[in-house]
């Protein structure tokens, strides 16, 4: 199966992340890139720009902008040309999906400006899969490509993200869940015990992604290593003050997805009422 990786406005974080796929050699045996910005490929970018090279899947990386040129060629025109020919289009990372870090009034993701549909490439909606993340989680990208190759049915959410990877929240699989349940905070940044939702800005309970189900580098995640989830798969990424929980009179402004405020506060009130001896001091010192 032939792939084309086209980059718009990007930091190339998705390229680096992709290379961390544990079985990258096997993947490169099963797929071939007609062009990739960091791999040796049979065609140059100039070839891609000037000819119509046959390929099956278009991978778009980076934020898009009307009139954005690379080597004198408007990148949107190239994307449009190949988008018409391929069987599937994948937006790789949050910039290509929703605008991400480089979002501006005149910049957008392939089909969305944050979560609002964007008209520029709307005619390709039917064949597009959104794989958000800053950067993309390599397994999510590679496994989706294999699913396409094997013609598996891929269920998508309302932002065209595969349910298998984005149906759950990052909270799912977090090792701090027990502390979340009983409302026990981590008091200092980087502590490995305690919940970081209440004070340290963790967005995992309302962020859709698989970071705690498919571990990064097969070993860890932000919350496991002491950092809050930044919500990097969400259309609203990046928010500001990422290490700080926005609260109104002590109540988090953003609550776990789908939980009514009244229900959350009732449960939290009950959970907070109990002093649980087991959690009264650290189990293992950092």
């Amino acid at each position, binding site marked *: 199966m032939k792939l084309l990786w086209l980059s718009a406005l990007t930091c190339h974080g998705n390229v680096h992340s992709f290379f961390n796929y544990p079985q990258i050699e096997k993947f490169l045996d099963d797929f071939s890139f007609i062009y990739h910005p960091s791999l040796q490929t049979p065609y140059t970018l100039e070839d891609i720009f000037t000819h119509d090279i046959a390929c099956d899947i278009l991978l778009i990386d980076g934020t898009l902008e009307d009139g954005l040129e690379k080597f004198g060629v408007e990148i949107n025109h190239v994307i449009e040309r190949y988008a018409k020919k391929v069987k599937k289009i994948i937006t790789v990372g949050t910039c290509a999906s929703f605008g991400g870090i480089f979002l501006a009034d005149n910049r957008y993701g392939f089909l969305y400006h944050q979560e609002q549909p964007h008209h520029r490439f709307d005619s390709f909606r039917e064949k597009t899969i959104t794989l958000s993340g800053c950067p993309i989680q390599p397994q999510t990208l590679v496994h989706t490509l294999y699913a396409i190759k094997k013609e598996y049915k891929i269920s998508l959410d309302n932002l065209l993200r595969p349910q298998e990877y984005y149906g759950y929240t990052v909270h799912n699989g977090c090792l701090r869940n027990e502390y979340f349940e009983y409302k026990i905070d981590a008091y200092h940044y980087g502590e490995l015990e305690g919940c970081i939702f209440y004070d340290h800005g963790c967005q995992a309970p309302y962020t859709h992604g698989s970071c705690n189900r498919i571990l990064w580098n097969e070993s860890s995640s932000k919350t496991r290593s002491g950092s809050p989830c930044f919500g990097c798969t969400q259309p609203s990424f990046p928010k500001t003050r990422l290490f700080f929980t926005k609260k109104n009179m002590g109540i988090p402004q953003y609550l776990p997805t789908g939980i009514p405020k009244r229900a959350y*506060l*009732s449960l939290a009130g009950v959970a907070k009422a109990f002093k649980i001896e087991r959690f009264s001091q650290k189990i293992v010192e950092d």
Partner: protein
Amino acid sequence: MEWTLSKKEQKKELIMQTALQLFAKNGFYSTTIPDIAKSLKMSVGNMYNYFKSKDLLAKEIIKYISHYLGVKLQKINESDLPTRDKITQIVTVYFETAQLKPEMIDYFLRVFLSNREVFKEGCEGMICVNDFITEIMIFFEEGVQCGELRDQEFFSAFGLFMGYLGGMVFLKGEAILPKELDSYVEDISENIYRALRV
């Protein structure tokens, strides 16, 4: 079966209301389960079918009061009123309850807050007043979110609001206030709003 359950719930409510009146009249510790049974013309044995002990009855009563006020506050929270008007509504509900059902507020202030040993197991923290506290939290949170109230720690705002209302009801109960509670609603609401607004 449903009918039986409903009847039992109704009876429980009647017992709680009677107990509240006796607690207010004779004091919490001086009122016994036989006193409550006698007032209801029930046998003491039958009373225990509803509440296994006076401590359990005490805890159920505080939940009952919290729920009673919580339902009223939920209606205010769900209304489209601006925050200033919601404050007036909350003060009105609190004072109306103090006037129409003085035994409820009396129980909250004189029994629940003053006899914590009775409530230490089963009513930890604010569990038994959760319905009421949750609505106050929602009121504050939404007031800040819509830009009308100043962001601060929950308890600094809660203490100002509820401490003020509790203090006024206490003064009324001590026959110190020269006027009825409802005549203070507007001034108190304005004071609370000015203290909490942005």
